Protein backbone atom coordinates (compact mmCIF):
# COMPACT_ATOMS: atom_id res chain seq x y z
CA UNK A 1 0.00 0.00 0.00
CA UNK A 2 1.41 3.39 -0.89
CA UNK A 3 1.45 6.41 1.34
CA UNK A 4 -1.97 8.03 1.08
CA UNK A 5 -0.33 11.46 1.03
CA UNK A 6 1.08 10.52 -2.33
CA UNK A 7 -2.41 10.84 -3.81
CA UNK A 8 -4.36 14.08 -3.56
CA UNK A 9 -7.85 14.12 -5.04
CA UNK A 10 -9.87 17.25 -5.56
CA UNK A 11 -13.54 17.08 -6.40
CA UNK A 12 -16.77 18.95 -5.66
CA UNK A 13 -18.00 15.64 -4.17
CA UNK A 14 -15.98 15.04 -0.98
CA UNK A 15 -17.15 11.46 -0.46
CA UNK A 16 -16.33 10.61 -4.07
CA UNK A 17 -12.90 12.23 -3.73
CA UNK A 18 -12.07 10.08 -0.71
CA UNK A 19 -13.21 6.92 -2.48
CA UNK A 20 -11.21 7.71 -5.61
CA UNK A 21 -8.17 8.35 -3.43
CA UNK A 22 -8.47 4.89 -1.87
CA UNK A 23 -9.12 3.30 -5.25
CA UNK A 24 -6.04 4.96 -6.76
CA UNK A 25 -3.80 3.71 -3.96
CA UNK A 26 -5.21 0.20 -4.29
CA UNK A 27 -4.84 0.04 -8.05
CA UNK A 28 -1.30 1.42 -8.07
CA UNK A 29 -0.08 -1.03 -5.47
CA UNK A 30 -1.98 -3.86 -7.17
CA UNK A 31 -0.33 -3.24 -10.53
CA UNK A 32 3.16 -2.71 -9.05
CA UNK A 33 3.52 0.92 -10.05
CA UNK A 34 3.22 2.41 -6.57
CA UNK A 35 6.94 3.02 -6.50
CA UNK A 36 7.05 4.38 -10.03
CA UNK A 37 4.39 7.07 -9.79
CA UNK A 38 4.44 9.70 -7.08
CA UNK A 39 2.97 13.08 -6.19
CA UNK A 40 -0.32 12.13 -7.81
CA UNK A 41 -2.90 14.89 -8.16
CA UNK A 42 -6.37 14.14 -9.43
CA UNK A 43 -9.21 16.47 -10.27
CA UNK A 44 -12.51 14.76 -10.93
CA UNK A 45 -15.92 16.29 -11.47
CA UNK A 46 -18.61 13.92 -12.73
CA UNK A 47 -21.00 16.81 -13.37
CA UNK A 48 -18.69 18.46 -15.91
CA UNK A 49 -17.65 15.57 -16.68
CA UNK A 50 -13.86 15.56 -16.46
CA UNK A 51 -11.00 13.53 -14.97
CA UNK A 52 -7.52 15.03 -14.80
CA UNK A 53 -4.52 13.19 -13.36
CA UNK A 54 -0.98 14.35 -12.92
CA UNK A 55 1.75 12.03 -11.64
CA UNK A 56 5.51 12.22 -11.33
CA UNK A 57 7.27 9.29 -12.98
CA UNK A 58 10.23 7.69 -11.26
CA UNK A 59 13.50 7.33 -13.11
CA UNK A 60 13.51 3.95 -14.82
CA UNK A 61 16.52 1.61 -15.10
CA UNK A 62 18.70 1.80 -18.24
CA UNK A 63 17.84 -0.15 -21.39
CA UNK A 64 18.89 -3.79 -21.54
CA UNK A 65 21.21 -4.57 -24.46
CA UNK A 66 22.18 -7.89 -26.02
CA UNK A 67 25.58 -7.77 -24.30
CA UNK A 68 23.76 -7.57 -20.93
CA UNK A 69 21.84 -10.74 -21.65
CA UNK A 70 24.39 -12.99 -23.39
CA UNK A 71 28.06 -13.39 -24.29
CA UNK A 72 28.86 -14.13 -27.91
CA UNK A 73 31.54 -16.50 -29.23
CA UNK A 74 32.19 -17.62 -32.80
CA UNK A 75 32.23 -21.39 -33.24
CA UNK A 76 32.26 -23.77 -36.22
CA UNK A 77 28.48 -24.13 -35.95
CA UNK A 78 27.89 -20.37 -36.05
CA UNK A 79 27.59 -17.65 -33.48
CA UNK A 80 27.03 -19.05 -30.00
CA UNK A 81 25.23 -17.00 -27.38
CA UNK A 82 25.60 -18.00 -23.73
CA UNK A 83 22.74 -16.56 -21.74
CA UNK A 84 23.77 -14.69 -18.60
CA UNK A 85 20.40 -13.31 -17.65
CA UNK A 86 17.52 -15.64 -18.41
CA UNK A 87 14.84 -13.04 -17.69
CA UNK A 88 15.29 -11.36 -21.07
CA UNK A 89 15.68 -14.49 -23.22
CA UNK A 90 12.30 -14.08 -24.87
CA UNK A 91 13.02 -10.50 -25.82
CA UNK A 92 16.43 -11.55 -27.13
CA UNK A 93 14.97 -14.38 -29.23
CA UNK A 94 12.33 -12.02 -30.64
CA UNK A 95 15.06 -9.63 -31.68
CA UNK A 96 17.16 -12.40 -33.26
CA UNK A 97 14.17 -13.87 -35.11
CA UNK A 98 13.32 -10.44 -36.45
CA UNK A 99 16.89 -10.02 -37.74
CA UNK A 100 17.90 -13.51 -38.93
CA UNK A 101 14.62 -15.39 -39.36
CA UNK A 102 13.39 -18.36 -37.35
CA UNK A 103 15.17 -20.92 -39.53
CA UNK A 104 18.60 -19.54 -38.65
CA UNK A 105 18.20 -19.73 -34.89
CA UNK A 106 18.52 -22.80 -32.74
CA UNK A 107 18.08 -22.84 -28.99
CA UNK A 108 20.04 -25.85 -27.79
CA UNK A 109 19.07 -25.59 -24.15
CA UNK A 110 17.96 -23.00 -21.62
CA UNK A 111 21.26 -21.18 -21.69
CA UNK A 112 22.57 -21.67 -25.23
CA UNK A 113 21.41 -20.18 -28.52
CA UNK A 114 23.07 -20.73 -31.88
CA UNK A 115 22.71 -18.24 -34.73
CA UNK A 116 23.73 -19.23 -38.26
CA UNK A 117 25.99 -16.28 -39.01
CA UNK A 118 29.69 -15.56 -39.11
CA UNK A 119 29.32 -11.86 -38.30
CA UNK A 120 29.04 -10.19 -34.94
CA UNK A 121 25.57 -9.12 -33.85
CA UNK A 122 25.25 -5.36 -33.29
CA UNK A 123 24.68 -4.64 -29.59
CA UNK A 124 21.04 -3.62 -29.86
CA UNK A 125 18.52 -2.89 -27.12
CA UNK A 126 16.30 -5.89 -26.34
CA UNK A 127 14.21 -4.48 -23.51
CA UNK A 128 13.27 -0.94 -22.54
CA UNK A 129 12.17 -0.66 -18.90
CA UNK A 130 10.95 2.89 -19.56
CA UNK A 131 8.47 1.70 -22.21
CA UNK A 132 7.24 -1.08 -19.94
CA UNK A 133 6.81 1.40 -17.09
CA UNK A 134 4.76 3.77 -19.27
CA UNK A 135 2.58 0.90 -20.40
CA UNK A 136 1.90 -0.10 -16.80
CA UNK A 137 1.32 3.46 -15.65
CA UNK A 138 -1.15 4.20 -18.45
CA UNK A 139 -2.91 0.90 -17.80
CA UNK A 140 -3.32 1.73 -14.11
CA UNK A 141 -4.54 5.27 -14.81
CA UNK A 142 -7.15 3.97 -17.24
CA UNK A 143 -8.40 1.74 -14.45
CA UNK A 144 -8.69 4.69 -12.09
CA UNK A 145 -10.47 6.94 -14.58
CA UNK A 146 -14.23 6.38 -14.86
CA UNK A 147 -14.99 3.83 -17.54
CA UNK A 148 -17.29 6.03 -19.59
CA UNK A 149 -14.59 8.67 -20.07
CA UNK A 150 -13.33 7.50 -23.42
CA UNK A 151 -12.15 10.77 -24.89
CA UNK A 152 -8.58 10.96 -23.68
CA UNK A 153 -5.68 13.34 -24.09
CA UNK A 154 -2.44 12.47 -22.44
CA UNK A 155 1.04 13.89 -22.27
CA UNK A 156 3.77 11.56 -21.09
CA UNK A 157 7.45 12.46 -20.80
CA UNK A 158 10.33 10.81 -19.01
CA UNK A 159 9.45 12.68 -15.80
CA UNK A 160 5.66 13.07 -15.62
CA UNK A 161 2.30 12.03 -17.00
CA UNK A 162 -0.71 14.27 -17.50
CA UNK A 163 -3.93 12.45 -18.32
CA UNK A 164 -7.19 14.21 -19.18
CA UNK A 165 -10.32 12.20 -19.89
CA UNK A 166 -13.99 12.94 -20.39
CA UNK A 167 -17.22 11.62 -21.80
CA UNK A 168 -17.71 14.82 -23.84
CA UNK A 169 -15.33 16.41 -26.33
CA UNK A 170 -12.48 17.88 -24.30
CA UNK A 171 -12.83 21.58 -23.50
CA UNK A 172 -9.93 23.99 -23.68
CA UNK A 173 -10.44 24.96 -20.03
CA UNK A 174 -9.86 21.37 -18.85
CA UNK A 175 -6.60 21.22 -20.77
CA UNK A 176 -5.62 24.58 -19.23
CA UNK A 177 -6.52 23.20 -15.81
CA UNK A 178 -4.26 20.22 -16.48
CA UNK A 179 -1.43 22.56 -17.41
CA UNK A 180 -2.04 24.51 -14.18
CA UNK A 181 -1.81 21.28 -12.21
CA UNK A 182 1.46 20.57 -13.98
CA UNK A 183 2.81 24.00 -13.10
CA UNK A 184 1.72 23.73 -9.44
CA UNK A 185 3.47 20.38 -9.17
CA UNK A 186 6.61 22.03 -10.51
CA UNK A 187 7.05 19.74 -13.51
Amino acid at each position, binding site marked *: MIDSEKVAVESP*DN*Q*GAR*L*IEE*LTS*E*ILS*DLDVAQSLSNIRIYID*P*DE*PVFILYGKLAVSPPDVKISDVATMTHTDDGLKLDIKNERYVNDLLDKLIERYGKANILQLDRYTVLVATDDDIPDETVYEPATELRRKVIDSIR*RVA*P*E*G*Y*RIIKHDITSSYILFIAS*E*EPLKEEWIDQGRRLLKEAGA
Partner: protein
Amino acid sequence: MLEPLMYTGGVYRHDELTELVEDLGGHILQKNVMQLEVVLLILVPADDISAVEEKAAELLGTITRAPLIGTEIAVVAPSLAYHHMPHPTCDVAEYLRRNGAKTNIIGLARGVGRRAAQLTKSERGLINEHDLALFILGDFLSCIRDVKYQLYEDLDVPTIVTGGPECDAVPYAYAYIGGIGRRAKGFHRDFEFAILDGIVAKISKALDERREELEKDPLSVSPFRLMDEITEQIPEVGESLSPTPITMHLDGMRIKLPYDQYGEKVRNVKFIEGPTLSDVAEVRPSYMRDYLILKIKTKSVAGFAL
Protein backbone atom coordinates in the same frame (compact mmCIF):
# COMPACT_ATOMS: atom_id res chain seq x y z
CA MET B 1 -43.64 -23.65 5.60
CA LEU B 2 -40.40 -24.83 4.03
CA GLU B 3 -37.09 -23.71 5.50
CA PRO B 4 -34.14 -23.11 3.10
CA LEU B 5 -30.95 -24.88 4.24
CA MET B 6 -27.51 -25.61 2.87
CA TYR B 7 -25.76 -28.88 3.70
CA THR B 8 -21.99 -29.12 3.31
CA GLY B 9 -20.32 -32.43 3.92
CA GLY B 10 -18.62 -35.44 2.45
CA VAL B 11 -19.90 -37.42 -0.53
CA TYR B 12 -19.89 -40.65 1.48
CA ARG B 13 -23.43 -41.52 2.68
CA HIS B 14 -24.85 -38.14 1.67
CA ASP B 15 -27.64 -40.00 -0.12
CA GLU B 16 -29.01 -40.83 3.33
CA LEU B 17 -29.60 -37.14 3.85
CA THR B 18 -31.24 -36.66 0.45
CA GLU B 19 -33.55 -39.59 1.17
CA LEU B 20 -34.44 -38.16 4.55
CA VAL B 21 -35.28 -34.79 3.01
CA GLU B 22 -37.49 -36.46 0.40
CA ASP B 23 -39.20 -38.59 3.07
CA LEU B 24 -39.94 -35.48 5.11
CA GLY B 25 -41.63 -33.89 2.09
CA GLY B 26 -38.78 -31.49 1.38
CA HIS B 27 -37.06 -30.75 -1.91
CA ILE B 28 -33.50 -30.90 -3.19
CA LEU B 29 -32.91 -27.90 -5.38
CA GLN B 30 -29.25 -28.28 -6.21
CA LYS B 31 -26.50 -30.81 -5.66
CA ASN B 32 -22.90 -29.86 -6.29
CA VAL B 33 -20.27 -32.53 -5.93
CA MET B 34 -16.74 -31.22 -5.78
CA GLN B 35 -14.24 -34.05 -5.46
CA LEU B 36 -15.11 -35.52 -2.06
CA GLU B 37 -17.28 -32.65 -0.88
CA VAL B 38 -20.95 -32.18 -1.58
CA VAL B 39 -23.06 -29.06 -1.23
CA LEU B 40 -26.81 -29.54 -1.18
CA LEU B 41 -29.37 -26.78 -1.35
CA ILE B 42 -32.49 -28.16 0.28
CA LEU B 43 -35.90 -27.09 1.45
CA VAL B 44 -37.14 -28.80 4.59
CA PRO B 45 -40.47 -28.45 6.45
CA ALA B 46 -39.79 -26.08 9.36
CA ASP B 47 -40.99 -28.63 11.96
CA ASP B 48 -38.51 -31.26 10.83
CA ILE B 49 -35.31 -29.25 10.80
CA SER B 50 -34.02 -30.96 13.93
CA ALA B 51 -34.22 -34.37 12.22
CA VAL B 52 -32.15 -33.08 9.32
CA GLU B 53 -29.67 -31.45 11.68
CA GLU B 54 -29.27 -34.71 13.59
CA LYS B 55 -28.63 -36.61 10.37
CA ALA B 56 -26.12 -33.99 9.25
CA ALA B 57 -24.28 -34.22 12.58
CA GLU B 58 -24.18 -38.01 12.22
CA LEU B 59 -22.61 -37.63 8.75
CA LEU B 60 -20.16 -35.01 10.11
CA GLY B 61 -21.61 -32.39 7.78
CA THR B 62 -22.87 -28.93 8.56
CA ILE B 63 -26.26 -27.36 8.05
CA THR B 64 -26.56 -23.61 7.62
CA ARG B 65 -29.56 -21.45 6.90
CA ALA B 66 -29.35 -20.02 3.38
CA PRO B 67 -32.18 -17.50 3.08
CA LEU B 68 -31.89 -16.94 -0.66
CA ILE B 69 -32.46 -20.56 -1.76
CA GLY B 70 -34.95 -20.91 -4.59
CA THR B 71 -34.35 -17.48 -6.04
CA GLU B 72 -32.45 -16.25 -9.05
CA ILE B 73 -30.80 -12.86 -8.72
CA ALA B 74 -29.33 -10.70 -11.47
CA VAL B 75 -26.14 -8.94 -10.42
CA VAL B 76 -25.89 -6.12 -12.92
CA ALA B 77 -22.69 -4.17 -13.55
CA PRO B 78 -22.40 -1.25 -15.98
CA SER B 79 -19.93 -3.34 -17.99
CA LEU B 80 -17.72 -6.38 -17.64
CA ALA B 81 -14.50 -4.34 -17.78
CA TYR B 82 -11.87 -4.38 -15.01
CA HIS B 83 -13.48 -1.26 -13.53
CA HIS B 84 -16.15 -3.52 -12.05
CA MET B 85 -14.65 -7.01 -12.17
CA PRO B 86 -13.69 -9.10 -10.31
CA HIS B 87 -14.24 -6.85 -7.29
CA PRO B 88 -16.85 -5.90 -6.40
CA THR B 89 -19.28 -7.60 -8.84
CA CYS B 90 -18.00 -11.17 -8.55
CA ASP B 91 -17.44 -10.91 -4.80
CA VAL B 92 -21.00 -9.79 -4.19
CA ALA B 93 -22.38 -12.43 -6.53
CA GLU B 94 -20.34 -15.13 -4.82
CA TYR B 95 -21.54 -14.04 -1.40
CA LEU B 96 -25.16 -14.26 -2.55
CA ARG B 97 -24.41 -17.71 -3.95
CA ARG B 98 -23.12 -18.80 -0.55
CA ASN B 99 -26.44 -17.71 0.85
CA GLY B 100 -28.22 -20.03 -1.53
CA ALA B 101 -29.18 -17.74 -4.41
CA LYS B 102 -28.57 -18.59 -8.03
CA THR B 103 -26.86 -15.50 -9.39
CA ASN B 104 -26.23 -14.35 -12.91
CA ILE B 105 -23.78 -11.54 -13.57
CA ILE B 106 -24.97 -9.27 -16.33
CA GLY B 107 -22.67 -6.70 -17.92
CA LEU B 108 -24.60 -4.05 -19.80
CA ALA B 109 -23.79 -3.05 -23.36
CA ARG B 110 -24.25 0.67 -22.68
CA GLY B 111 -24.21 0.93 -18.93
CA VAL B 112 -21.18 3.15 -18.48
CA GLY B 113 -20.98 6.93 -18.36
CA ARG B 114 -23.81 9.38 -18.08
CA ARG B 115 -24.75 10.38 -21.57
CA ALA B 116 -25.38 7.00 -23.12
CA ALA B 117 -26.35 4.96 -20.03
CA GLN B 118 -29.34 2.85 -20.95
CA LEU B 119 -30.76 -0.67 -21.03
CA THR B 120 -31.40 -2.46 -24.29
CA LYS B 121 -34.68 -4.30 -24.80
CA SER B 122 -33.09 -7.72 -24.43
CA GLU B 123 -31.24 -6.69 -21.28
CA ARG B 124 -34.49 -5.45 -19.76
CA GLY B 125 -36.22 -8.70 -20.74
CA LEU B 126 -33.41 -10.78 -19.28
CA ILE B 127 -33.28 -8.90 -15.97
CA ASN B 128 -37.07 -9.06 -15.64
CA GLU B 129 -36.86 -12.86 -15.75
CA HIS B 130 -35.08 -12.81 -12.39
CA ASP B 131 -36.56 -12.43 -8.92
CA LEU B 132 -34.50 -9.36 -8.09
CA ALA B 133 -31.87 -7.15 -9.68
CA LEU B 134 -28.81 -5.93 -7.79
CA PHE B 135 -27.02 -3.03 -9.46
CA ILE B 136 -23.34 -2.47 -8.68
CA LEU B 137 -22.63 1.21 -9.25
CA GLY B 138 -19.70 3.55 -8.66
CA ASP B 139 -18.32 6.20 -6.35
CA PHE B 140 -20.16 9.44 -7.10
CA LEU B 141 -23.48 10.18 -5.47
CA SER B 142 -24.62 12.60 -8.16
CA CYS B 143 -24.21 9.86 -10.79
CA ILE B 144 -26.07 7.26 -8.77
CA ARG B 145 -28.88 9.55 -7.60
CA ASP B 146 -29.42 11.77 -10.62
CA VAL B 147 -28.49 9.69 -13.66
CA LYS B 148 -28.09 5.96 -13.22
CA TYR B 149 -31.70 5.33 -12.17
CA GLN B 150 -32.37 5.37 -15.91
CA LEU B 151 -30.94 1.87 -15.95
CA TYR B 152 -33.54 0.42 -13.60
CA GLU B 153 -36.55 2.74 -13.54
CA ASP B 154 -38.50 0.59 -16.03
CA LEU B 155 -37.77 -2.79 -14.48
CA ASP B 156 -40.64 -4.91 -13.16
CA VAL B 157 -38.54 -6.68 -10.54
CA PRO B 158 -37.43 -5.04 -7.28
CA THR B 159 -34.04 -3.39 -7.61
CA ILE B 160 -31.38 -2.95 -4.96
CA VAL B 161 -28.54 -0.57 -5.72
CA THR B 162 -25.04 -0.60 -4.23
CA GLY B 163 -22.48 2.15 -4.53
CA GLY B 164 -19.58 3.83 -2.80
CA PRO B 165 -21.06 6.89 -1.05
CA GLU B 166 -23.38 6.71 1.91
CA CYS B 167 -26.95 7.77 1.18
CA ASP B 168 -30.38 6.85 2.55
CA ALA B 169 -32.25 6.14 -0.64
CA VAL B 170 -32.06 6.56 -4.38
CA PRO B 171 -35.02 6.98 -6.76
CA TYR B 172 -36.84 3.91 -8.12
CA ALA B 173 -34.75 1.48 -6.07
CA TYR B 174 -36.10 -0.73 -3.29
CA ALA B 175 -33.00 0.00 -1.24
CA TYR B 176 -29.57 1.52 -1.50
CA ILE B 177 -26.46 0.11 0.18
CA GLY B 178 -23.33 2.24 0.39
CA GLY B 179 -19.74 1.36 1.19
CA ILE B 180 -19.00 -0.75 -1.87
CA GLY B 181 -18.50 1.34 -5.00
CA ARG B 182 -15.51 0.70 -7.20
CA ARG B 183 -12.86 -1.40 -5.52
CA ALA B 184 -9.62 -2.99 -6.54
CA LYS B 185 -9.46 -5.37 -3.61
CA GLY B 186 -11.64 -8.11 -2.23
CA PHE B 187 -13.84 -8.20 0.85
CA HIS B 188 -11.64 -9.36 3.72
CA ARG B 189 -12.37 -7.36 6.83
CA ASP B 190 -15.19 -7.71 9.30
CA PHE B 191 -16.92 -4.47 8.41
CA GLU B 192 -16.78 -5.42 4.74
CA PHE B 193 -18.54 -8.70 5.47
CA ALA B 194 -21.08 -6.71 7.46
CA ILE B 195 -21.87 -4.77 4.28
CA LEU B 196 -22.35 -8.01 2.36
CA ASP B 197 -24.58 -9.34 5.13
CA GLY B 198 -26.53 -6.10 4.86
CA ILE B 199 -27.10 -6.78 1.16
CA VAL B 200 -28.32 -10.31 1.91
CA ALA B 201 -30.67 -8.96 4.60
CA LYS B 202 -32.12 -6.33 2.25
CA ILE B 203 -32.57 -8.89 -0.52
CA SER B 204 -34.26 -11.33 1.88
CA LYS B 205 -36.60 -8.57 3.00
CA ALA B 206 -37.49 -7.61 -0.56
CA LEU B 207 -38.10 -11.24 -1.47
CA ASP B 208 -40.19 -11.83 1.67
CA GLU B 209 -42.39 -8.91 0.66
CA ARG B 210 -42.74 -10.45 -2.79
CA ARG B 211 -43.68 -13.77 -1.18
CA GLU B 212 -46.30 -12.05 0.96
CA GLU B 213 -47.68 -10.38 -2.13
CA LEU B 214 -47.89 -13.78 -3.84
CA GLU B 215 -49.73 -15.21 -0.84
CA LYS B 216 -52.55 -12.69 -1.29
CA ASP B 217 -53.30 -14.34 -4.63
CA PRO B 218 -51.53 -17.70 -4.33
CA LEU B 219 -49.97 -19.58 -7.21
CA SER B 220 -52.14 -22.26 -8.77
CA VAL B 221 -49.45 -24.87 -8.08
CA SER B 222 -46.37 -24.95 -5.86
CA PRO B 223 -43.24 -24.27 -7.94
CA PHE B 224 -41.46 -27.16 -6.19
CA ARG B 225 -44.19 -29.63 -7.02
CA LEU B 226 -44.09 -28.41 -10.61
CA MET B 227 -40.32 -28.91 -10.64
CA ASP B 228 -40.71 -32.50 -9.43
CA GLU B 229 -43.38 -33.24 -12.06
CA ILE B 230 -41.25 -31.80 -14.87
CA THR B 231 -38.13 -33.70 -13.76
CA GLU B 232 -40.14 -36.91 -13.65
CA GLN B 233 -41.98 -36.56 -16.94
CA ILE B 234 -39.15 -35.04 -19.01
CA PRO B 235 -36.09 -37.15 -18.19
CA GLU B 236 -33.88 -35.03 -20.50
CA VAL B 237 -33.83 -32.41 -17.73
CA GLY B 238 -31.59 -34.70 -15.72
CA GLU B 239 -29.21 -35.08 -18.65
CA SER B 240 -28.49 -31.36 -18.86
CA LEU B 241 -24.89 -30.51 -18.01
CA SER B 242 -25.90 -27.29 -16.29
CA PRO B 243 -25.46 -27.27 -12.49
CA THR B 244 -29.08 -26.24 -12.09
CA PRO B 245 -31.05 -27.68 -15.02
CA ILE B 246 -34.12 -26.15 -13.41
CA THR B 247 -33.51 -22.81 -11.75
CA MET B 248 -36.25 -21.88 -9.33
CA HIS B 249 -37.90 -18.49 -9.17
CA LEU B 250 -40.46 -17.33 -6.64
CA ASP B 251 -43.25 -17.63 -9.22
CA GLY B 252 -41.84 -20.02 -11.76
CA MET B 253 -38.60 -21.40 -13.08
CA ARG B 254 -36.06 -21.40 -15.85
CA ILE B 255 -35.73 -24.78 -17.56
CA LYS B 256 -32.45 -25.26 -19.35
CA LEU B 257 -33.73 -27.11 -22.39
CA PRO B 258 -34.12 -25.72 -25.93
CA TYR B 259 -37.51 -24.05 -26.30
CA ASP B 260 -38.05 -25.21 -29.89
CA GLN B 261 -37.73 -28.89 -29.00
CA TYR B 262 -39.22 -28.97 -25.53
CA GLY B 263 -41.73 -26.09 -25.38
CA GLU B 264 -44.68 -28.33 -26.27
CA LYS B 265 -43.47 -31.22 -24.14
CA VAL B 266 -43.29 -28.97 -21.09
CA ARG B 267 -46.75 -27.54 -21.79
CA ASN B 268 -48.13 -31.08 -21.97
CA VAL B 269 -46.80 -32.20 -18.58
CA LYS B 270 -49.78 -33.87 -16.85
CA PHE B 271 -50.90 -33.60 -13.26
CA ILE B 272 -52.59 -36.48 -11.49
CA GLU B 273 -55.59 -34.22 -10.77
CA GLY B 274 -56.27 -33.84 -14.51
CA PRO B 275 -55.03 -30.50 -15.83
CA THR B 276 -51.90 -30.10 -17.92
CA LEU B 277 -49.10 -27.68 -17.23
CA SER B 278 -50.36 -25.15 -19.79
CA ASP B 279 -53.49 -24.72 -17.62
CA VAL B 280 -51.48 -23.56 -14.62
CA ALA B 281 -48.42 -21.90 -16.15
CA GLU B 282 -47.24 -19.88 -19.07
CA VAL B 283 -44.24 -21.19 -21.01
CA ARG B 284 -42.22 -18.89 -23.23
CA PRO B 285 -38.71 -18.63 -24.65
CA SER B 286 -36.18 -17.10 -22.30
CA TYR B 287 -33.89 -14.22 -23.18
CA MET B 288 -31.09 -16.43 -21.87
CA ARG B 289 -29.76 -18.69 -24.67
CA ASP B 290 -32.55 -20.90 -26.04
CA TYR B 291 -33.92 -21.83 -22.63
CA LEU B 292 -37.51 -21.96 -21.47
CA ILE B 293 -38.99 -19.66 -18.92
CA LEU B 294 -42.04 -20.74 -17.00
CA LYS B 295 -44.31 -18.43 -15.02
CA ILE B 296 -46.98 -20.00 -12.85
CA LYS B 297 -50.46 -18.50 -13.11
CA THR B 298 -52.04 -17.29 -9.92
CA LYS B 299 -55.18 -18.91 -8.58
CA SER B 300 -57.33 -16.05 -9.82
CA VAL B 301 -56.00 -16.36 -13.37
CA ALA B 302 -56.02 -20.17 -13.59
CA GLY B 303 -59.39 -20.39 -11.79
CA PHE B 304 -58.24 -23.24 -9.54
CA ALA B 305 -55.32 -24.37 -7.44
CA LEU B 306 -53.77 -27.83 -7.22
